[in-house]
């Protein structure tokens, strides 16, 4: 038995899937931080990103980088519209109403995608053509490198944005205390719009970059959303690096569980992990206990 190759292969697979979960989780966090809303339509942004990229490449024959950017921009606008036309009307609703509203939006987005693209899966050509690289006997697809690269890029850009730019700092301030932020002159309303824009764009980037590997169809969003949600909770809601680490961890846990334990129960393992964390450390694996005290569980 070639133990080494298997191990490395599971690692590659887990990192690729985990990176996507991480991006979805970061999307949840951005919106949650500013609005305390969990946007259940986050997975649909991923689906839309993938299918939009297919549209720009397949129908309009854009080169891939242009299609990628266009897909991200289009979906960002969808996110913006979602806040502007739907959620802004429901600011003071209960948690339950907000959950239902975002679920309704996700159903609408899914339905719209079904009309536009039908029910068949679509694929994209990989961003760079070429044979998979072999490392320690395990194959690594070039597209997987793109996935990891884009996740790294998003994380770096986001941390620069949040710690260096005025807007980013303002958003963090909204997250800490919206009322205080408003009092100190931060336009909270704009920050909310910005958070939807960013989070939809990040979701779309994830969708566009994963499509060459895993294909994309109209009803893929829900499961990706659920997994990303798990990662967000696992890392502690609102924690960016927590989401990144938890996303990768979740991907790896699934991949190794499928490899060494049972492939049928791999999804259950991730969920069980999530339950344990919620029950015993609700602030998330990487959340701080002190910050958690300020929030309501």
């Amino acid at each position, binding site marked *: 038995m070639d*133990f080494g190759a*298997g191990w490395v292969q599971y690692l590659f697979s887990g990192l690729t899937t985990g990176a996507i979960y991480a991006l979805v989780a970061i999307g949840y966090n951005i919106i949650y931080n500013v609005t305390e809303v969990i946007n259940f339509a986050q997975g649909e942004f991923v689906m839309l990103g993938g299918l939009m990229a297919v549209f720009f490449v397949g129908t309009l024959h854009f080169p891939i980088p242009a299609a990628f950017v266009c897909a991200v921009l289009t979906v960002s606008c969808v996110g913006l519209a979602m806040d502007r036309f739907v959620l802004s009307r429901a600011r003071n609703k209960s948690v339950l109403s907000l959950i239902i509203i975002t679920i309704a939006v996700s159903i609408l987005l899914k339905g719209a995608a079904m009309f536009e693209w039908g*029910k*068949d*899966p*679509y694929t994209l050509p990989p961003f760079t053509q070429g044979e*998979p690289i072999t490392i320690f006997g395990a194959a690594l697809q070039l597209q997987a490198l793109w996935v990891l690269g884009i996740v790294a890029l998003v994380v770096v850009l986001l941390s620069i944005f949040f710690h260096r730019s005025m807007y980013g700092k303002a958003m963090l301030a909204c997250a800490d205390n919206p009322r205080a932020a408003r009092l100190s002159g931060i336009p909270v309303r704009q920050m909310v719009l910005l958070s939807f824009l960013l989070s939809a764009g990040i979701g779309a980037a994830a969708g566009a970059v994963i499509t060459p590997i*895993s294909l994309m169809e109209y009803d893929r969003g829900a499961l990706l959303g659920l997994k990303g949600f798990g990662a967000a909770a696992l890392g502690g809601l609102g924690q960016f690096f927590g989401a990144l680490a938890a996303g990768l961890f979740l991907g790896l846990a699934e991949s190794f569980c499928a*490899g060494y334990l049972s492939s049928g129960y791999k999804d259950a393992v991730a969920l069980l992990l999530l339950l344990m964390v919620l029950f015993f450390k609700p602030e998330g694996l990487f959340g701080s206990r002190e910050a958690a005290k300020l929030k309501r569980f």
Partner: protein
Amino acid sequence: MRSMRQGIGMAMMAAAFLGAVLPLTASPCMAADKEPYKIGAIFSVTGVGSFLGEPEKKTAEMIAADVNKNGGINGHPLELVLYDDESDTTKCNLNFKRLAKTDKVPVVIGPSRTGESLAVVGVAEDMEVPVITCASSYKIVTPIESRKWCFKVAGSESDVVGKIYDHMKSKGITKIGVMCDSTGFGASGKEELVKLAPEYGITIVADETFGPKDTDLTPQLTKIREAGPQAIVNWSIGPTQILAVKNWRSLKMDSIPMYQSHGFGNRKNLELAEGAAEGVLLALARVNVGPLLPDSQPQKPVIMAYKKAYEDLYNEPVSSFGGHAWDSMNLAIAALKAVGPDPAKIRDFVENTKGFVGQHGVFNFSPTDHGGLSKDDLEMVVVKNGDWALAQ
């Protein structure tokens, strides 16, 4: 705000009321000399099974229009009452009762999938309405004592597995790895793969599962590779079957031949796999490979005729699923032509149908076999130059 809220609420109530009353007013009036013959149909036109229901619906509608253009059945116009079960067992159950009670159809074709079909077999028995399903599980027609009114036109998994195992045996393959998705389709495939393996002297050295929406199957394939099989069988539907092929190729496992289930028998899959599917083997019904068949094959004329009609009308290739609808629809029409709209007589007619040449084979039903097909109705097919070819 309050009054607006009430207004909206009232409007919604009114809409709901209209929805309730609408069916009362919309009774179709047909200007025909003879009373129309009805065929009920339930397909998964939307939801996860839509890739089955969509071509089935199109085929059934095409045939119904064709029959009516040619003077109907013995002069009676044909009315197809088609409902979508949305791939949901509860809805399917309700649809069946609606067909039997409100629409009073003498025979039902569909549902598309095993789960939905099993949810109506009990009702069909209770209401004594024959149902000709397009799903494949043997559970739909066994035990035969409690499945008097149930027929199926899709070949059993055991036939497909038998055909694949025959081919493996002829190539000297004895150790295989199996991967199935966690849907009803994958589960029943796995059941047959495991059950029939000893009969053909085959050992399953790896047995993996994955979800229908999984994005990466390399862990499963890697685990299979480590068990050292001589061939891999992938049994899934939807995007994962393309994913399996792509991952198999990118892991450079193409020295181990890959067999797919009959679910792979859609030309679109070959496009989506972008060349990665070269060399994949599968057992397919002849409807998929019409042009490859020798002219002496008895099914060739009906397959070519259906292919031409469907492709001219809808501008998309035929699929084996549409073929199921063709078979069940034409069986129902044949029964109506022979015995008229009497459920019990239709049941007896279908049960005694022999040598019915359809898209999926030559059907021979009997009181002990409500499936009517065997593994000889399948062809072993290989992907060659992005197209199907008969395998040696």
